[in-house]
């Protein structure tokens, strides 16, 4: 009898542990949304989004496609009133129709107000050093400063550097700066280094769960003209983070990669396109907004190292980064310098 009780207790313990391991690994993959849990979480997300809608005092228009994980709503036009606190209505999936292909900033129509540019390395941490003695920390700082100058010219955006000098800056502090300054975008600038191969390559990393999209296209209309920055809507965004952030960073990465590569090929037609990748970088992992790490050049390539010595080339890279960021923000609706 006692033995059976002990076995049953051990079995329960194992079940708890198995479930814990499963959830831990899902979290690691950025997939913390088993279907059962999604259903449970919807009302909370809905409540936040609906509260926002009430603030905006607007009417939402719906589409027709319905995701199977949401409760379908029959009306084609839904007028919002203050949600009852005890039982907030389910979020109509049709509100999110079309948002899959839309950047978060545009979905909320907020305008990105703060961009953090993070020149990699610094101080004691020189980063890579080319054969000619060029140090990664110096080049990326110069590119970051140029990028800031370019973006500063756009009055609506505040641009901050995690470091504006040659000093050591731990990864945690870089992330802390992004948090403290309510960044809306985070772009870390680095140079590649592949000593064993005489290649020049460009690649852009992002760290974000590649989860299902659940976007809020309609919310951009509610927020239009309300003036809040994305960081001020963090509470809502965080709740959508699992679904949204996973797509935002790759989108930003793709825009930057495309633009920087285009620029790189002007100088070196053979530059290799390594594309965008998920990368295990702490600085990206902990950023709470769309965040990418761009390897904008390759310092181990002697010809490229020589080119990086020229201010014109560095300015070109900064311009390409700027274009990539703008491309992301405008979702391809504008023509940029780099396309000329």
């Amino acid at each position, binding site marked *: 009898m006692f033995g059976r009780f002990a076995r049953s207790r051990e079995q329960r313990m194992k079940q708890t542990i198995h479930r814990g391991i499963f959830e831990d*690994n899902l979290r690691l993959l950025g997939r913390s949304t088993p279907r059962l849990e999604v259903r449970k979480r919807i009302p909370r997300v809905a409540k936040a989004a609906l509260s926002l809608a009430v603030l905006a005092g607007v009417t939402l228009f719906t589409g027709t496609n319905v995701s199977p994980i949401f409760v379908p709503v029959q009306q084609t036009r839904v007028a919002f009133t203050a949600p009852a606190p005890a039982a907030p209505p389910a979020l109509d999936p049709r509100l999110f129709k079309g948002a899959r292909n839309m950047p978060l900033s545009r979905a909320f129509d907020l305008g990105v107000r703060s961009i953090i540019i993070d020149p990699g390395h610094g101080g004691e941490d020189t980063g890579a050093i080319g054969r000619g003695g060029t140090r990664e920390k110096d080049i990326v700082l110069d590119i970051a400063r140029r990028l800031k100058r370019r973006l500063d010219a756009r009055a609506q955006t505040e641009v901050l550097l995690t470091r504006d000098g040659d000093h050591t800056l731990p990864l945690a502090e870089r992330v802390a700066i992004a948090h403290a300054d309510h960044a809306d975008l985070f772009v870390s600038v680095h140079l590649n280094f592949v000593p064993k191969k005489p290649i020049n390559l460009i690649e852009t990393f992002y760290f974000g769960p590649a989860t299902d999209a659940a976007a809020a296209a309609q919310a951009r209309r509610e927020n239009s003209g309300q003036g809040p920055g994305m960081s001020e809507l963090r509470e809502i965004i965080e709740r959508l983070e699992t679904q949204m952030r996973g797509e935002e960073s790759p989108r930003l990465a793709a825009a930057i990669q495309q633009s920087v590569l285009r620029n790189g090929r002007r100088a070196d037609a053979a530059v290799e396109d390594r594309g965008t990748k998920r990368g295990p970088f702490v600085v990206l992992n902990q950023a709470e907004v769309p965040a990418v790490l761009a390897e904008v050049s390759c310092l181990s390539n002697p010809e490229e190292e020589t080119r990086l010595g020229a201010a014109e080339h560095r300015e070109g890279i900064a311009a390409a980064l700027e274009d990539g960021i703008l491309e992301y923000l405008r979702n391809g609706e504008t023509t940029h310098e780099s396309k000329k």
Partner: protein
Amino acid sequence: MSQKSDVLAVGIDLGTSRSSISAGNGQRQWIESYVGWPKDFIAAQVVGKSVLFGGEVLEHRLMVDVCRPLQHGIIKEGIDRSEEAVKEIIRHLVELAGPAAGQKVHAVVGVPSDSLKVNRLAIRKAVGEFVDSLVVVTEPFAVAYSLGLLNNALIIDIGAGTTDLCIMHGTLPGEEDQRTLLQAGDYIDDQLFSYLQERYPRSTFNKNMVRQWKEQFSFVGDSPEEIKVVMPVDGKPLLHDIKADVKRACESVLPAIVEAVTQMIARFDPEFQAKIRKNIVLAGGGSLIGGLREHLQAALKEYGSSQVTCVKDPLFAGSDGALKLAQEMPEQYWEKL
């Protein structure tokens, strides 16, 4: 249970020094965690392989680019060769396990406790290419699972790169239940190397020789036996007594381990503290250090009665536990991983 004919469950212990695999088909294999690539065409002709592992790497180390990818228990971030080497180790281990054609592989991989999320992701990425579904757990947890010690137990897994401690209390251990120390096998090697350099400045020896001596003679406390090894002096082989240096190097890791153990146990309710102290298990290659179990037990005496034991098979304890977990994890979880 995931153990079906169309699925091969495997448990992998990815270690700094040695990596092992235990498979549901009965295969148990291990390799030293060294990977080597021939430096050029001639080297490739001589060694006759495109990739070498373990002992072969050390044997041909002058002809190959050597990579020991899991220094301090982590994949060295941003170093391509390091990630590539981890992939080669995993590919080789899975091949050694011999899944049948068309058979899916469900793998549980043990990594150091303190592995950052980034590192666990990097390992997932490296392993993911060679298996169909994958779970990453911490190494001491895998050992605890293998022993069925799911509650009121403390596992001390002394590996080459790290010493991992993990308290089990009936649930999946959280971050606060786990600690990683860098005082482990490699640390002892470094200490011993520097002590011997100081004592015998005219002798010539290398890190590999020092590591072999440590593995052969390591002890803490008292040992009646002499420890004499051959080291060349000006090209002439001479016998040297290294007993005092081996003892000093091995004992250099003890203060950190004892401190971590006492701090971790102190977090629990006194009633549970006593239970945990009665259930301390030493695992990993470090558990083979002579006199270590007795020393730890004595060191913990002032905190109350303690019972320290050693796992029977330190080389496979982690991979066996990982295999057990792979076999017992419900199928529905595997489908999503």
